[in-house]
């Protein structure tokens, strides 16, 4: 599009320039004319000058005859000069514009000038061209006007540009109007389309405009103005092609178009069609079409207009559609919301919970049916009243805190409500604040669940739990073996919590002695100490011993009370519950509970009291029995201790005696042996056989006594010190003993078979002694055998380790086995075998000290088996032996490394 402003300016400038130039030329011409005084010269000069000008120059005389034309003018009009001369005045000018020029011509005739007259010229070829002309009167030297000179400037392009611009402006205007209309139409698609269709029709000068919407395979006319609009097929129409290609389609003559049959349009007499697709962001919605019965009716300008409006419409429609969509959705949602509200209301109404809604002051604005029922009011009477009105006084502060709280919704609370009839309702209230847009509290919604029953059940449960706990306490007390007083205190503590009482006591009766003792109790919350009371203060013994519960509802209403009850009455107690403590049907005491309220004790309290009484009685009885037992046990232990001490002392004495006697016997024995020997040695020859015989007997006897005394000393030594326990390898020990016995076995054939023996924890010295005795015996009693076999084997019996000594000696009868280990008991005559029977006694003593045993098996002439065990294998244990005090010499022995025990 040309810029008309610049164009104008340039045109104007050029024009002005050319006019000026002309004027100058004319002046020059006038000068020359003066000089030459020739019209022809003038004309030819004029011709020369104007021959090369682009502008058309024309001159008329006063008679309106053409007097001069330049070639440019000829070109401009398309007529040769001659034709123009023959033409009518202003014939070349468009008939519509002539009047205007003519009107101005008069001025020219009066010597005025015309400037920038614009008019159309019809060229010989029939073309319309725009000209801008300026006219000047022509004068001779005298100044007499002789004609008019005009220059014509072809401004067709400029005009067309202006026209185009005007059209664009029109279009732009139309678009604006359209948008306004669209806005005014309120985005109603139908109206928008209609508006667009009308506008485009106007803009393009079409006979009709149609908007077709794509519907599957068809294009359906949604809006049409000025023409019928048939339904078209997507693949059989220009519209269809437009949609498919997404491009503007143009048909300048339906009759001549080979692309499409254009059947319906032909029938409608439509010759020109312009169609443009309507798109939104994603797809083609339809088409905008203009039609005309004239062929080639639509210009590029129309195309432009159509494109513009088509695009605009596409966007508008899209918006409209989505708006409509939104609108629909909004409607749907609103409907849904309304439905939901309705349902909610229904739900709320039939909910199990009571629901209220209150404003920020706590005034009820809504209650559901349930809440109304719960509180015993009709629906209406609750509205407008504060919630607190229905909440019991003690719950109110808690409620207020909750209901004015903005934070933490969903806070649960137990509140007590008052019904219309005055009864109470326990409600579990869950309330949430309702907050406004700015976060301010605008109200609350509360949900109330009836928990009256639950509360009752909870109370019940708690009471039951308490009762159980109390019984458990009683049992614990029994197990803990406390004194009766402690048990009583525990029971009273529990009772106080569960049964109303200003005073509760446990009293034990001793009917035999006519005494009673209050062992525990509480008076006004303070513990009472144990107090002995005479039985006479109580109800008569007969009553007490009946063993039944007694409930006195009001002391003040009774006469003839026993002293104790009189005291209680004086203290202000009114009702008393007495529960006997029974053990095996015998009354051992009672619990007394007193209250300052008359008839204070419900059946439940009585149940609780008797529930306590049973285990309490048992517990007290147990405690007493235990005490008795402890006492007796103590007594026994004391006696036992005394006896043990006495026993130990006696044993010690005996041992000491034994030792000292044995010791003291040694010297005279030595003498006896010595002198009898000397007698025999020195004077045996001189003695008569009888005397000799006696001397020999004396000597023999002395020798026996020596052996005896040695054994006694050995025996007495055994218990005198503590038993050492050390790991002793028995094999080695036995071998040592065998070695030591060799001197007694000289000349004999003895087959020693010593097996691997265990290592035992024992006293090495004592064990050596024991084994020595056993082996010495084996050696002795196998003497008659040509080949003696003595075998030593390990044994383990009852967890005790030890050994067995088996010989092939003379053996003994098992009938005498009991005597075997007796002190000084012998199973053989002195002429059979020497010995005094102390050896095995010693072995037994040693075995017993170790916690072991010694026993034997034998058959006459079939050898014997002796078993010795030395206690269980426990490491590092020192067993205090029955240590005697030792002989006088050894009493000073305190630091020898052994503890002085015993």
């Amino acid at each position: 599009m040309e810029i008309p402003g610049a164009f104008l300016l340039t045109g104007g400038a050029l024009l002005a320039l050319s006019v000026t130039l002309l004027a100058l030329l004319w002046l020059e011409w006038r000068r020359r004319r003066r000089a030459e005084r020739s019209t022809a010269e003038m004309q030819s000069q004029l011709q020369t000058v104007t021959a090369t000008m682009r502008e058309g120059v024309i001159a008329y005389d006063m008679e309106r005859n053409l007097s001069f034309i330049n070639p440019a003018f000829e070109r401009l009009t398309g007529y040769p000069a001659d034709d123009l001369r023959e033409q009518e005045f202003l014939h070349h000018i468009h008939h519509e514009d002539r009047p205007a020029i003519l009107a101005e011509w008069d001025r020219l005739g009066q010597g005025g000038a015309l400037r920038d007259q614009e008019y159309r010229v019809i060229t010989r070829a029939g073309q319309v061209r725009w000209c801008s002309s300026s006219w000047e009167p022509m004068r001779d030297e005298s100044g007499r006007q002789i004609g008019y000179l005009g220059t014509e400037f072809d401004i067709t392009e400029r005009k067309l540009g202006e026209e185009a611009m005007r059209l664009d402006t029109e279009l732009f205007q139309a678009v604006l109007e359209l948008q306004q209309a669209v806005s005014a139409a309120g985005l109603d698609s139908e109206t928008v389309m209609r508006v667009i269709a009308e506008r485009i029709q106007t803009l393009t000068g079409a006979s009709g405009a149609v908007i077709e919407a794509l519907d599957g395979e068809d294009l359906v006319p949604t809006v049409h103005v000025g023409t019928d609009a048939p339904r078209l097929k997507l693949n059989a129409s220009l519209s269809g092609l437009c949609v498919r290609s997404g491009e503007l389609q143009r048909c300048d003559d339906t009759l001549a178009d080979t692309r499409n049959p254009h059947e319906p349009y032909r029938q409608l007499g439509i010759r020109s069609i312009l169609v443009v697709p309507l798109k939104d962001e994603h797809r083609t919605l339809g088409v905008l079409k203009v039609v005309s019965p004239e062929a080639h009716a639509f210009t590029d300008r129309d195309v432009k207009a159509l494109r513009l409006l088509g695009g605009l419409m596409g966007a508008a429609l899209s918006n409209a559609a989505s708006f409509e969509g939104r609108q629909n959705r909004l409607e749907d949602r609103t409907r849904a919301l309304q439905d939901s509200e309705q349902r909610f209301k229904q739900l709320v109404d039939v909910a199990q919970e009571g629901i209220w809604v209150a404003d920020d002051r706590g005034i009820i604005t809504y209650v559901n049916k349930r809440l109304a029922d719960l509180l015993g009011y009709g629906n209406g009477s609750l509205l407008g009243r504060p919630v607190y009105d229905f909440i019991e006084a003690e719950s109110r502060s808690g409620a207020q805190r909750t209901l004015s709280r903005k934070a933490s919704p969903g806070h649960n609370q137990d509140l007590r409500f008052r019904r219309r009839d005055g009864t109470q309702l326990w409600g579990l209230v869950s309330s949430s604040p309702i907050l406004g847009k700015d976060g301010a509290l605008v109200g609350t919604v509360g949900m109330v669940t009836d928990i009256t029953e639950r509360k009752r059940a909870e109370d019940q449960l708690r009471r039951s739990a308490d009762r159980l706990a109390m019984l458990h306490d009683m049992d614990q007390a029994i197990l803990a073996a406390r004194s009766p007083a402690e048990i009583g205190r525990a029971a009273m503590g529990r009772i106080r919590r569960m049964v109303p009482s200003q005073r509760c006591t446990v009293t034990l009766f001793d009917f035999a002695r006519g005494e009673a003792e209050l062992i525990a109790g509480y008076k006004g919350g303070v513990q009472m100490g144990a107090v002995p009371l005479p039985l006479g203060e109580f109800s008569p013994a007969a009553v007490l011993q009946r063993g039944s519960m007694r409930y006195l509802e009001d002391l003040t209403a009774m006469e003839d009370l026993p002293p104790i009850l009189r005291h209680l009455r004086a203290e202000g107690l009114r009702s008393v519950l007495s529960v006997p403590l029974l053990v095996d049907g015998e009354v051992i005491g009672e619990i007394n509970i007193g209250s300052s309220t008359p008839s204070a004790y419900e059946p439940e309290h009585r149940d609780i009291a008797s529930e306590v009484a049973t285990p309490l009685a048992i517990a007290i009885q147990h405690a007493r029995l235990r005490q008795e037992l402890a006492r007796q046990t103590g007594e026994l232990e004391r006696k036992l201790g005394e006896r043990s001490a006495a026993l130990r002392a006696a044993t010690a004495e005996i041992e000491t005696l034994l030792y000292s006697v044995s010791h003291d016997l040694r010297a005279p024995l030595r003498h006896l042996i010595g002198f009898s020997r000397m007698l025999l040695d020195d004077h045996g020859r001189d003695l008569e056989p009888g005397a000799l015989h006696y001397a020999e007997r004396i000597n023999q006897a002395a020798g026996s006594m020596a052996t005896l005394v040695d054994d006694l000393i050995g025996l007495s030594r055994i218990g005198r010190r503590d038993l050492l326990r050390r790991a002793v390898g028995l094999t080695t020990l036995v071998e040592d003993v065998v070695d030591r016995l060799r001197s007694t076995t000289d000349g004999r054939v003895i087959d020693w078979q010593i097996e691997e023996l265990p290592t035992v924890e024992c006293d090495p010295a004592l064990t050596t002694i024991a084994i020595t005795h056993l082996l010495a015996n084996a050696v002795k009693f196998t003497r008659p055998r040509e080949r003696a076999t003595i075998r030593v084997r390990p044994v383990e019996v009852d967890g005790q380790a030890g050994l067995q000594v088996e010989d092939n000696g003379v053996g003994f009868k098992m009938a005498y086995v009991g005597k075997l280990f007796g002190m000084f008991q012998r199973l053989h005559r002195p002429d059979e075998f020497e010995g005094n029977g102390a050896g095995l006694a010693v072995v037994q003593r040693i075995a017993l000290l170790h916690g072991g045993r010694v026993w034997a098996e034998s058959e006459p002439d079939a050898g014997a088996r002796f078993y010795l065990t030395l206690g269980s294998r426990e490491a590092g244990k020192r067993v205090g032996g029955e240590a005697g005090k030792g002989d006088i010499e050894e009493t000073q022995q305190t630091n020898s490394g052994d503890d002085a025990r015993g």
Partner: protein
Amino acid sequence: MTALPTRLPAYPPTTDVLLVEDNPLDAELALRPLRELSPGSIIEVARDGEEALDFLLGRGGWRHRLGAPLPRLVLLDLTLPRLDGMEVLRGVRANARTRLTPVVVLTSSTDPRQLSQCYQAGANSCIQKPVGYDEFWAAIQTVGRYWLVFNQSPPAAAPPVT
């Protein structure tokens, strides 16, 4: 019982053995093996502790022994009336003159404490008196043989300055 050569001291006849024993029977029993061992030995018997010390230290009834050579062996029974064997032993060891004299203690007891005391008091040896006759005989003779024949007696101490 072979008689071994006895060495006679270079001095004038001197007591070889002092037997301190209160019991005459024990004394008699002890003398026989000693005499059999060394028939030429001079054996003196003290009947109690005081007498023993008087003899050794040259005082009391034995004043005239003051300065006399000491016995080559003292056989000391512990159980003595009045002044007992331990006291005698201590007394002997306390005196400069008799300090080195060999003393063999004869006892019936096997009490380790008593044994320890004896040695601490300065006994050269402790023998338990066996009950059996043969054993007793052997014990006495062994002791005698050892101390009188094998042992080198300590040189006689300088006579005390009186």
